[in-house]
Structures are given as structure tokens and as C-alpha cells.
């Protein structure tokens, strides 16, 4: 026994140090757990995501990543889409109020038309997070936070890319055409304003045409074809901008069909895109497109779920929770390829 005693003591010392280590480990784990996500503050909350439409890979990716992240918090998520029908979205919000959801995440169809519904939601004390589409200024008291991109900034980045693309071809000015997303409200006009702001200090760059392509591929291709025909007699265009990559690539196809050389050489038609998509990334790699701008739906969906959870955790959220936007050119295209492909 006597001989055993120091051995046992040694053993006990080992055991003790092990237990202390374990205790520290558990404590550290607890602290870490509490610090990362407040997991569980939104557990069981009924959250309704209202999309303006669901028939686009961008929106599908937002929904998917939102669902995954929300599921990890234990939220009870329902998704509805309005097919670009503002009246339908208003009814969906009315229904959601009647069915007492805990939180609404809304991608507004109409920046004006959503306002009366938001007033109703506020009266019913149902918090709203806005997704992707900015709404009418002056209504900030109607929602908790806006999660999305700074569309004016995206326009300014596009504006600078337009200047740089012309410079790459040795031009300090030129005739350019802009094929935009829907201009009646929302993202389109804000991005256009950003572009015009930058181009205002480059008087040699002349905006020869601004055409509304409604974010769609086929109309954009038609518009581009008509623009090439229209300006063929007066020396042609120096640059075409497609607000989304599908539109920019449509403009490239129309140019190829019209026998116009695409690239950034002195006599070539330069193309700048936006809302990075796989086809845009491919066009940049192929040397057909000068640049696009990051807009990553999976980041957006996750950030929105985090915002919902933070709200229920009692955190104060910023009015605008903005995702970083970056210019993508040949120099950094490889690092964006995976995230722009969805």
C-alpha cells in the first residue's frame, strides 16, 4: 500500500489534470458556442420568405442557402413566390399577417406597391427583413433591416469598368449603349444612376442609348442587334453594357451574328456585364467580356438567415446589411468562378 500511495497519487494527479483540461475544454466550447451564432434563439420561429419570383437560378440559390442556414438554426421556414405580381405579393403579406408568422423576409416585387402591406405588417407587430430589392426611400421605419447590395455602388463600379474597358482599347472616350434590367423601379434605375454618376466626369464617353431589357436574355439580344444596326452608319458602338451577365452575353452573341468583332482591341466592341453568372465568367475567360461584378446569392441567403436569427437573439441590426461587391476581370476571374456558378 505504501509503495502504491505515490503511484496512486501520481495517477490521481494525471486524472485531475485530465479533468481540469476537460472542464476548461467544455467551458471554452460553451463560450465559443455562445459567441458564434447564438444557436437556437430563432428555434421554432415561423419564418415566411416571400420572393418576387422563383423561376431564376439566382433566386433559387437564395432560397436554397436561406433554407439550409435557417434549418441549422431550427427555424420553421415557408417560401412563397409572387411571379412578379405585386397584387399577389400584397395578398401573400396579408395572408401571412392573418396566419401570424414570426418574421417575414420579403424580396419586394414593387418598391412602391409593397409599402401599404409593410404598414399593415408593422401594425400587426410582425417584423420584416427586406431581401435584395431596395424599396422606396423614407420607409425605413417599416422594416428591421435590408440585406442586399448597394445598387448605386454596383452602378459606380460598372461605370469605372466601362471607363477602364475603353482605356484597354486605347480609347479615352467613345459611344456606348446600356442594356439594362427593368428600369421602372428597384435595382435598374439605382444602378443606372451610379453609372451616370461616374460617366459624368468623362465627357468624351457618350451614352448613345439606354434600353430596358427587363433582365431577360432574348429581348436583350434583340435590342443589341437593333442597336448595332442603328449605329452601324455612324461608326458603330465602342462598348455595350449588359446590366446582368445573361444580357451582356446576349449582346456578344448578337454582335457575333452581326459580324462585329468583340474584344478590347482599338477597333473592337468592348462588353461589360454585371451580376456575375457562369456565362459571364466564361466570356471573361474567353476574352470576350472585359468585366462583371460580384453578386453572390448563396452569401445573400445565408446572411438573411443570420439576420433573422440575430433579430430573435435581441441584437441590434444595421438598417442596411450590405454584401461586399467587387469587380471581376480576367485578373481575378479564377477566384470568383465557383461562387458565380450556381
Amino acid at each position, binding site marked *: 500500500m505504501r509503495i502504491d500511495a505515490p503511484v496512486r497519487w501520481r495517477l490521481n494527479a494525471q486524472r485531475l489534470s485530465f479533468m481540469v483540461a476537460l472542464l476548461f475544454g467544455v467551458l471554452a466550447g460553451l463560450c465559443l458556442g455562445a459567441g458564434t451564432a447564438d444557436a437556437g434563439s430563432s428555434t421554432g420561429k415561423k419564418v415566411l420568405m416571400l*420572393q418576387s419570383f*422563383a423561376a431564376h437560378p439566382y433566386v433559387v440559390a437564395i432560397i436554397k442557402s436561406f433554407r439550409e442556414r435557417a434549418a441549422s438554426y431550427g427555424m420553421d421556414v*415557408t*417560401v*412563397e*413566390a409572387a*411571379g*412578379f*405580381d*405585386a*397584387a*399577389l405579393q*400584397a*395578398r*401573400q403579406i*396579408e*395572408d401571412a399577417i*392573418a*396566419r401570424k408568422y414570426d418574421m417575414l423576409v420579403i424580396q419586394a416585387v*414593387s*418598391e*412602391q*406597391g*409593397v*409599402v*401599404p*402591406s409593410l*404598414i*399593415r405588417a408593422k401594425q400587426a407587430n410582425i417584423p420584416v427583413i427586406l431581401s435584395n430589392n431596395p424599396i*422606396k426611400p423614407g420607409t425605413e421605419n417599416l422594416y428591421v433591416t435590408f440585406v442586399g447590395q448597394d445598387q448605386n455602388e454596383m452602378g459606380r463600379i460598372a461605370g469605372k469598368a466601362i471607363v477602364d474597358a475603353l482605356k484597354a482599347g486605347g480609347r479615352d472616350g467613345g459611344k456606348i449603349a446600356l442594356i439594362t434590367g427593368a*428600369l*421602372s*423601379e*428597384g435595382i435598374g*434605375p439605382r444602378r443606372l444612376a451610379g453609372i451616370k454618376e461616374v460617366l459624368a466626369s468623362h465627357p468624351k464617353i457618350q451614352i448613345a442609348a439606354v434600353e*430596358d431589357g427587363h433582365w431577360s436574355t432574348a429581348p436583350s439580344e434583340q435590342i443589341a442587334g437593333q442597336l448595332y444596326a442603328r449605329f452601324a452608319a455612324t461608326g458603330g458602338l465602342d462598348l455595350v453594357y449588359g446590366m446582368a451577365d445573361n444580357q451582356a452575353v446576349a449582346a456578344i452573341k448578337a454582335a457575333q451574328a452581326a459580324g462585329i468583332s468583340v474584344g478590347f482591341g482599338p477597333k473592337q466592341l468592348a462588353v461589360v456585364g454585371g451580376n456575375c453568372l457562369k456565362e459571364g465568367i466564361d466570356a471573361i475567360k474567353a476574352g470576350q467580356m472585359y468585366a462583371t461584378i460580384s453578386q453572390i446569392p448563396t452569401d445573400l441567403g445565408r446572411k438573411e438567415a443570420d439576420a433573422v436569427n440575430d433579430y430573435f437573439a435581441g441584437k441590434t441590426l444595421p438598417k442596411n446589411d450590405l454584401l461586399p461587391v467587387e469587380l471581376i476581370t480576367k485578373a481575378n476571374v479564377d477566384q470568383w468562378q465557383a461562387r458565380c456558378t450556381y
Partner: protein
Amino acid sequence: MSLAFLRNDPHGRPLVTFVLTVLLLVVFGAGQGALLSPAVVRSTLETFGDTGLVALGLGLTMVIREFDLSVVGVFSVGGCIAVLTGNTDPWTGLLLALALGMIAGLAQGWLIVRLRLGSIGITLGGMLVLSGLAYVLSENRSLPYDNMQVALALTQPIAGVFSIRSLLTLAFFVVAALVVGTTRIGRDLIAIGSDRRAAMIAGVNVNAIIVGVFAFSGATAALAGVLVSYSLASASPAGLSDVIVPAATAAILGGVSLSGGTGRPLGIAIGMLILGVLHAGLNVLGAPPYAEQIVMGAVLLVVAVADGPLLLRRLGMTKQLIKPGLISGAHRNG
């Protein structure tokens, strides 16, 4: 008995479809119990209030064997005019929009009877012109309507399930049903839709009725546009809502045939309620966004097939065969 009811009463089939739809939803929603809530009734009535007026006007043009495509344009331009002119006084906007809708309808109706042209061509032209006008008036901008009191009043719940919009739409349907059901105009509509030449010989003022129905369709489409625009406090040149597909669907579900001569206002109202209850019901059941379209399409298809004269004749034949015991007898012998 049920077949006879389906064939003879103009409201029979829509009513049966409505009841079947509700039953189907209740069965699918079994155990949830959420389906028979005031929220679902209110949602159904709001859908009714959004598109019902367009369905009524369009449905009546279908009854006289025409089709008013221009409701799309009238709906959006009506909303734009109301929002542009009705900021201080909503009634001014409403009246101007109604006037434009009615004039558009009158003009198209007049062209149709005067030049003896098909309504599809004329109203397609009308739709394009009016939609274009909406873009010109709004300068391709979504227009804000600052009179938020009007917006909130129009959708404020009344008695839990109604709103001014849905009550007004309901009132239009009741008046239309009374006019069609109790006056000569109703019989004339059906006569024109069934056999225009015979109606003319029988002394029906066919031209006046056609022009009148198109004027009514224009006015109701404009009113629907105004109501939606006022309640969303905005107007959009692209139209705030897709109206023609649900309106035509409601009319067909409501017993109106594209070949004319059948259908009543109350039937169209029931058709609208079928759409509304499907939308609200699937919503409660948590169906994914695309499911609604599929179910709606399936219901429409079933109704269209059931509507076919061939099917009814076959059913009638089967009945005759069963009656004298031919089928059962054959079965026994075999």
C-alpha cells in the same frame, strides 16, 4: 339527377366544382384544421376582389362569343391614370380611369360591329395601344400614390373577412346577376352567344349589346386597375397584376364557354371563388409556389374535358345503356 342539374342549371357545374375543390382541400389538409379559418375566407375574398371585376367583364364578352384581350391594357392604364390624377382627390382619378376604360370598350365594340371583325384582332390592337399608353403616361416608371389613407382603407378588413374592394366587386356581381337574370338583356346575351343570326332575326339589337358589353368590360377592367393601384399605393406601366389568365380561368371554371352562349355572372363569381380558395388553401397547406399553377391547370383541364359535349353525350349514352339493363345484362351473360 346530378347530371341533369349539371346540364340544366347554369350555376350547377361551377357550384359542384367549387364544393369539390373545397372538399379536396379539406381532405388534403386533414388534421390541420387551418383550412376552415377566417384567414382563408378573407384570402379567398381578396383574390376575388383583385381579379373578379376583370373576370366579370371578360366573362360577359365570352358569353356573347367574343373575347376582350384589351382588359390587360385597360387594367394597367386605368391604374396609371388614377394614380397620376387622383393624388388629392381619389374620385377624380377613379372617374377619369373609368371614362377611359369605357371609351376604349365603346371604340373597340364599335369597330367590331361596324367593320364586322373578330374581337381577338381588334382587342389585341387595343391591348397593345393601351399598354403603350401606360408606358407613355408613366414614362416607364413605377408611379407612387401618396394618399396612403386610401390605400389602407381599401384593404382594411371589414367584419373580419371582407374589404371595400371585395364588397364592391361582390356588389357588381349581384347587380350583373340581377340584370342578366331578370331583364331582357340577359336573354339577349345568351341568344347572341348561341346563334347570332337567329338572335338578329328574333329582333335582338345585336350591335348595341355587343358595344355595350365591351364598354362594360372596359369599365370593369379600369375599375379593377384603379382599385389595385389605390390599394398598393402605386401604379406600374407593366400592370401590377397578371389579370387575364386568372380572369379567363375563372370565367371558364364558372361555366362560361369559349364557344359562347353559356355562363352567368354568378357562375363567374363562383369561378373566381374557386381560384381564390385554391390559392388560399394551397397556401395554408404549405404547397410550393409552382404547385398552385399545376393544380389550377389540372382543375381547368378537368372542367374543360367535362365541359366537352362529347363527354356528356357519352355519359348520357352510358346512362341509357345502364337503364334498360344492357350493360349489366351483357356482363351477366359474359
